[in-house]
């Protein structure tokens, strides 16, 4: 038997002929025993709506997302035109003194990068990790924003790969208003309708800039990933 079959048959055996401890006392009833009988109760729905979602409309979602972004120490700006986007990005570049910026091909990223007068690294067709590491900022698009948690949903296919959104010290996300979803359930639904069965190799929910509390439980931003996360919603 190959190792796969060995383990699977061990599992089948354990499920088919269980033993109860070392004694003959009757087995305890597992608490969540509905599962074995094909659980589809209402509790799951209640449990999934675990937090206010702003499902009522764009304005609610926006308000909730903004509130979460503040809590997470991410910067969020609602942008009204492509011109305003360009101005925003230019201002960021000037205030932080960007010398090199990385991005990927996309309508919004290209528009934003065109306004920047700095050397650009495009990750689309492969790149050297050292070059990306030398960049001061990364500008990416995303798959969705999630109001419930203040998260940004990215995939390797829509945000320039796996490293672009985590290696440079400042991650700037450009999203469209219609990408603002109410909650996590909607985000996973979106992934299914958009990609199934051909999913990207990498999917991530980014919730605020990188952080750690490993030293005396004191919050420090920029542990290994970006120290800053800016979300621009066009």
């Amino acid at each position, binding site marked *: 038997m190959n190792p796969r079959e060995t383990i699977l048959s061990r599992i089948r055996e354990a499920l088919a002929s269980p033993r109860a401890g070392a004694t003959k006392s009757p087995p305890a009833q597992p608490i969540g025993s509905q599962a074995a009988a094909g659980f589809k*109760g209402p509790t799951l729905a209640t449990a999934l709506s675990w937090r206010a979602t702003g499902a009522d409309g764009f304005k609610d979602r926006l308000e909730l997302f903004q509130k979460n972004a503040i809590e997470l120490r991410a910067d969020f700006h609602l942008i009204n035109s492509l011109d305003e986007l360009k101005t925003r990005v230019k201002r960021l570049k000037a205030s932080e003194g960007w010398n090199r910026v990385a991005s990927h091909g996309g309508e919004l990223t290209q528009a934003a990068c065109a306004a920047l007068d700095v050397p650009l690294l495009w990750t689309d067709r492969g790149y050297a990790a050292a070059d990306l590491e030398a960049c001061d900022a990364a500008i990416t698009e995303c798959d969705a924003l999630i109001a419930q948690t203040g998260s940004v949903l990215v995939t390797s296919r829509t945000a320039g790969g796996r490293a672009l959104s985590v290696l440079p010290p400042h991650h700037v996300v450009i999203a469209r208003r219609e990408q603002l979803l109410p909650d996590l359930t909607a985000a996973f639904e979106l992934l299914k309708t958009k990609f199934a069965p051909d999913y990207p190799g990498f999917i991530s929910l980014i919730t605020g800039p990188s952080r750690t509390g490993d030293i005396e439980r004191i919050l420090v931003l920029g542990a290994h990933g970006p120290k800053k996360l800016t979300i621009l919603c066009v």
Partner: protein
Amino acid sequence: MSAAKIFLKQSGEVTRDLRQRELVHAAMGKYGAARTQAESRFQDWEAARVAAADIKDDAIHHLDRYLGEFANKLEARGTKVHWAGSGADAREIILKIARARKARSIIKSKAMTCEEIHLNTALEEAGFRVIESDLGEFIVQLRREPAFHIVFPAMHLTRRDIGELFARELGCAPAENPEELTMIARRVLRKEYMAADIGITGANFAIAETGMVSITENEGNARLTAALPPVMITVLGIEKILPRLEDLALFLPLLAGAGTGQALTCYNSLYGGPRQPGESDGPEEFHVVLLDNHRTSLLADIEQREALRCIRCGACLNACPVFRNIGGPAYGTTYSGPIGSVITPHLRGLQDWKHLSSASSLCGACTATCPVHIDLHHHLLRNRRNAVTQNPGFLERQAFRLFAFVVNRPALYSLATKVARALQPLHRRIQGTLIDPARPWTQSRELQPIAPQTFKEWWRQRT
């Protein structure tokens, strides 16, 4: 020395370390406040726990089917799935990959399964350089000691301890500010990600429906470990399965809330394969190592298999009055705290590890806090019962026989209390000393004085 003796010795030492106790209690206080807030974010925390337990039970009761689906989907996208029956099998699989790639340097993100199979030692003995990238793990690796806590590895250290450690081990200027210290680690580890030949990660969930591993973290170190090196290896226990992608909509906030008190951790990433056609980066090879290592024997125990629901959030450790005072290393196990006491006897032998189930007041705080409703403190009792049934202690049996003999004979019992009352002042003189037969109890506690009068004597006086 037996595991039980080491446990007694070490826990005794740690309990007397007041500085450490203060540090740990302060950290737990911060966790407690955040955790309460996290629970209040849920419209119905209890419903979430029950739903999570049900989903996990479904996964566990159909583990063969879901695991098969998970592996098939992963393989379809070019991932190599390995099945490791034991820790030794898993080590052999990983060493083989490292040798085939002629690797030198390996970067790791936090993985309890790797601790469980003692992977670092095996890799280092085979000549590979292994670097832990999670800040807390990096700190304890520099100190060459085990993690204090499965979620907060360095919670027993002050910023000053860490500053001195970095100055000594990394040769950097002394620093004491948590931010500065974090930036030092960031700079050092950046180079390691770039230079590493292999990245090894653990996983929090395995999605059967889509064939993906889900990794939860805050720092971004796991994302870098998974993105930059040309080879990625993920080691996970077979019980990590979740049936559907959307189950994460419940489990990600549940894990964050129970683990750190956050609404959601910073990065929750799904990996479904190596670099795919048309993608700009990612590893050339992606290996997933599925680890059994006695999990199937826990699965066969119908009373205790629900312990396989565990999502390793660490909440029961934080709630446990024993853990809070003795810390993780004293347990001498990979998984410490209540859940460690419950599952270690299954993973490493009941008779050698039964003492952990006795080191509990059975207060039930662990059961109350568990986000997947594992009946932890009753499992501690079941372990005790199983241990005694399997191997009844001769002295203990005689002692109880004697006790039964005395209490079943009122005259004898009455005589015994009189003798004890008379002797107690004498006992006071030796209380807590080496010749005290009750020393394990009295070395740090007072014995209650025996009442001057029994109830019967008092009643007789009144009538």
